[in-house]
């Protein structure tokens, strides 16, 4: 049986891992390659590296870091942040990334999703969607959740899948940093309707939140950053808990 995936996210700034509350006020949480290996040993199923300042500062994700991670890591990983062209993706995949995640650039140029899916295959194209409630509606935001668009989250999710996205990383900006749980209502809507895996992100605080997002939220994978970086929840204990709760996860060896 296909397992539910646990995905630590390493937010990268200047080659280091950071995580902030609502993406503001960043705190240092360690070095990416060491942290990545540690997570892999602890039973993480996949990793995501997001160069969170890349879009804002027009920086490209550090290819050098990607190569180092790829050389040392024996599980799949995704790289996102500041990717706006086929050339960017080609360079990241050549450096050893398994998938790329695009966000603002997909909103700005939706045709990029088609191009990437045709060139590299849907399996390596993750579209990240940052969603925030505005007047009771779920609205897509770009640039680290700062800029509202006119797109409604569900209709944008349908469009990115139609264009070839292989996976959706849905971050609830309302929940992100709150530790109050994932936005399971929105996740369940997306997961029920879309034929691709949905990664839940934003709001993980306690182990029960993961169980809830896999059951109520129907998510295929759950992503979190600070609770793992600051050792509030260990991946082995999380997996034991989920197994006990009847959720299929890859056991920690």
């Amino acid at each position, binding site marked *: 049986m296909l*397992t539910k995936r646990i995905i630590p996210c390493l937010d990268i700034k200047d080659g280091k891992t950071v995580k902030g509350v609502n993406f503001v006020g960043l705190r240092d949480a360690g070095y990416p390659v060491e942290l990545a290996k540690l997570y892999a040993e602890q039973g993480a199923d996949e990793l995501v590296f997001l160069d969170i300042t890349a879009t804002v500062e027009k920086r490209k994700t550090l290819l050098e870091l990607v190569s180092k991670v*790829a050389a040392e890591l024996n599980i799949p990983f995704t790289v996102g942040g500041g990717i706006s062209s086929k050339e960017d993706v080609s360079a990241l995949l050549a450096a050893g990334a398994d998938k790329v995640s695009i966000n603002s650039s997909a909103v700005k140029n939706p045709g990029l999703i088609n191009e990437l899916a045709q060139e590299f*295959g849907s399996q390596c194209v993750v579209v990240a969607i940052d969603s925030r409630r505005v007047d009771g509606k779920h609205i897509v935001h770009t640039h680290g959740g700062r800029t509202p668009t006119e797109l409604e989250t569900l209709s944008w999710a349908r469009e990115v899948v139609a264009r070839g996205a292989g996976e959706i990383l849905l971050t609830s900006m309302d929940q992100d940093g709150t530790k109050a749980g994932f936005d399971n209502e929105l996740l369940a809507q997306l997961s029920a309707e879309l034929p691709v895996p949905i990664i839940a992100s934003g709001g993980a605080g306690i182990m029960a939140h993961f169980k809830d997002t896999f059951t109520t939220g129907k998510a295929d994978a759950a992503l979190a950053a600070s609770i793992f970086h600051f050792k509030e929840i260990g991946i082995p204990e999380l997996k034991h808990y989920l197994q006990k709760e009847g959720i299929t996860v890859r056991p920690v060896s």
Partner: protein
Amino acid sequence: MKVAIVKYNAGNIRSVTYALQRLGIEPCISDELETLRSADKVIFPGVGEAGTAMAYLEERNLDQLIPTLRQPVLGVCLGLQLMCSHSEESNTPCLGIFDVEVKRFPPREKVPHMGWNRIEQVKGPLFDELSQEAYLYYVHSYYAELSPYTIAQTDYILPYSAALQKNNFFALQAHPEKSGKDGEKILENFLRLK
């Protein structure tokens, strides 16, 4: 030991190279017939689309070479599918090493099959000392049917060939290069084959 990786337009050559390096092997990546023929082991990787990949292999006569190799050969992911007789992906005639049809998953669950799944009913030296609870990492939308060559099964939507073997030809649908310690074990076992 000389390990060659077949160089073609496959997306995971770099990852396979890194995985071998972690096991202390420096592979050579080549599309030259002599280099491939003289290697002790050949790995035939693969991430991509069947039709495009076969066209590339045909242009370089690799479609002729690969089925005639005598040393242990390991196909990975799309590599496994290309070693079969035919793929529904772009209705592509493949290398025909395994007389097996590659089909698209019926859309009863999410496709691609992406993530970690069990490998079961394993047979043969590729799986020596593999944990009973082994999980491997999969990403694919097409699958090889069960056949007399099946040496392991995985169940997603339906049971299918997680691994195939015929004589010196081995193939694995999952990505051993991305499957943690269980994947490393399978690669080690392959490298130990005579």
